[in-house]
């Protein structure tokens, strides 16, 4: 059997692009990395594999903890990590969701082509940058009070619909129709709400962005037709999350769990994996608070999209509806959700790793996806009606210089990764190193030579997000496609990009 050793971790090659860290010591299950050898060598350069191995120690982890092809080191739980944890006897871990709850991506179609946009690029990037709040202290599209925040937390995009910021079609094309029903605003602290009330409808900073793109390639015509995508078409990609409100929800529950479930925490290898036992009051409260933050993030992206429609109306001097500016899909990539999956069950009737399995059963799991995208295949009941026959859209942003991809949930995603695939290109270089290697002005000029117009709050952000700090998104998507966890539908290339 072919093996790959990195430090104290040895992986066995199960088959092409599937690597397994066998169960040993305190690991509850094996762990798996879905990657080519080149991506695996990048993944193994930092502490990703150790964090993945640690994740298998969470009580109730089933089958295996999985690292997607774009995985890299996070805090506690790796970015690109997926764990399906028994919702009856297991636990829920805020650290395995991440601080930016429902950080995610949405793509909006237009019926414009590059011929319509050419010559307007700089006007467009300036107008978008002026209109869409970004960076630290940039405010939001809506300056709200606590009452409004509570409504957003409770109702998600239904609130945006009632307030005139969304259409019925927007809701129909959002994961879970833009609302997590099991949310409870009263489980969200006043502190979190105070942070959120001035940030509703804002990008934030770091790797968050809004990008106007053109579709350069279509790989699966039939699926692209269902998604309304064709070569030469202009689309808009929005990447942001739940802002300070979501960060505070994660922080609050990490600390509450640490205090109330210290016994469980003392058995875990990393304090950032702090977990509330399934069925405990805190597990239920966190799930409800996380759901509320998920709703906040959907409204956040909706308001940014609403403002984008207004900017296009100004720049192209016509109503947004005549430009076909419809939501293709909005998909979360930092989330935990109760889902039913087929898992291996051991002699005692509890979900276990492959080795001890005596039978397979459908079980309700808390599927934790941190930097991973839900990727349900055609026919799955949770795929929106418009896409039921072709599979759920998956949006994988690349870097400012390399383009992005639209995929559809693949048939093998359920078996290999609890219905998940990658969420981006995945970093390979630290921000500190990026600032040593790149200067924001040079990066911007280089991109302009490629006719990509970038506007950011700071040059340092441009340097930190330079294309060279990311893995090869083409390789990430190629592996996803080859494994059948996400099938390539179309490729897009940046036209202009605004960053916080």
């Amino acid at each position, binding site marked *: 059997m072919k093996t790959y050793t990195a430090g104290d971790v040895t992986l066995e090659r199960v088959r092409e692009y599937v690597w397994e860290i066998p169960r040993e010591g305190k690991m509850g299950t094996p762990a798996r990395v879905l990657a080519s050898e080149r991506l695996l060598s990048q993944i193994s350069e930092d502490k990703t594999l150790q964090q993945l191995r640690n994740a298998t120690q969470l009580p109730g982890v089933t089958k295996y903890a999985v690292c997607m092809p774009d995985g890299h*080191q996070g*805090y506690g739980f790796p970015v690109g990590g997926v764990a399906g944890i028994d919702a009856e006897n297991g636990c829920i871990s805020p650290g395995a969701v991440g601080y930016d709850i429902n950080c995610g991506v949405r793509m909006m179609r237009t019926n414009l082509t590059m011929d319509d946009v050419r010559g307007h690029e700089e006007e467009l990037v300036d107008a978008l940058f002026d209109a869409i709040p970004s960076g630290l202290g940039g405010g939001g599209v809506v300056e709200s009070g606590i009452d409004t925040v509570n409504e957003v937390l409770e109702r998600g995009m239904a609130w945006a619909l009632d307030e005139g910021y969304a259409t019925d079609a927007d809701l129909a094309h959002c994961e879970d129709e833009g609302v997590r029903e099991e949310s409870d605003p009263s489980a969200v602290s006043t502190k979190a709400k105070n942070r959120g009330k001035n940030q509703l409808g804002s990008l934030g900073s770091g790797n968050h962005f809004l990008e106007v793109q053109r579709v350069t390639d279509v790989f699966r015509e039939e699926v692209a037709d269902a998604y309304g995508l064709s070569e030469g078409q202009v689309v808009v990609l929005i990447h942001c999350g739940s802002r300070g409100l979501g960060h505070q929800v994660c*922080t609050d529950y990490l600390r509450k769990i*640490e205090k109330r479930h210290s016994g469980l925490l003392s058995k875990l290898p990393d*304090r*950032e994996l702090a977990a509330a036992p399934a069925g405990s009051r805190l597990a239920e409260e966190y799930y409800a608070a996380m759901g509320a933050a998920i709703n906040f993030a959907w409204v956040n992206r909706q308001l940014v999209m609403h403002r984008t429609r207004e900017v296009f109306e100004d720049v192209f001097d016509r109503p947004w509806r005549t430009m076909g500016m419809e939501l293709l899909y909005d998909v979360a990539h930092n989330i935990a959700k109760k889902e039913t999956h087929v898992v291996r069950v051991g002699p005692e009737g509890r979900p276990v790793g492959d080795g001890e399995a005596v039978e397979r059963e459908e079980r309700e799991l808390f599927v934790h996806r941190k930097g991973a995208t839900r990727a349900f295949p055609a026919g799955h009941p949770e795929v929106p009606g418009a896409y039921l026959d072709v599979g759920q859209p998956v949006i994988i942003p690349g870097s400012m210089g390399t383009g992005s991809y639209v995929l559809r949930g693949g048939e093998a995603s359920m078996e290999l990764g609890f219905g998940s695939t990658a969420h981006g290109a995945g970093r390979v*270089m630290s921000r500190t190193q990026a600032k040593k290697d790149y200067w924001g002005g040079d990066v911007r000029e280089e991109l302009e030579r490629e006719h990509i117009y970038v506007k950011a709050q700071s040059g340092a952000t441009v340097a930190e997000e330079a294309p060279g700090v990311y893995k090869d998104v083409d390789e990430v998507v190629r592996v996803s496609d080859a494994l059948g966890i996400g099938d390539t539908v179309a490729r897009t290339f940046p036209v202009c990009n605004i960053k*916080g």
Partner: protein
Amino acid sequence: MSYALREHTADIGVEATGETISDAFAAVADGMAAAMCDDIPAGGTRFALDVRAESREALLFDYLDELIYQRDVRAVLPVENEASVREDGDGWHLNGSARGVPLADLSAREVKAVTYSEMVVEEADDGWRAHVVFDV
């Protein structure tokens, strides 16, 4: 007291030292400000903080979380941090202050949250050392 920004694939680490634990805590807070902003302007007014927690590590976590919270609700970047840390009857206690520079006056990147990942708070031969990874 001093700090240095440490590399981390996706996030950012701050390593700080101080003659006392109070100095080390304030140095981590200054490092967090440096992770957000390269050139800090003059101006702004000082504000006070009061934080209690059950352990040294929890106190450092809650202190930095409070600074992030104050940043968002006051719309200021907390810089020139001062801290006084002591153990009292039922845990650890920090009195501190920071100069809050209006965010409107600077160009800054967001630190989302403080994490426990790889956190170190330890007494060394020549003082105190702390290491914190921030989610950015």
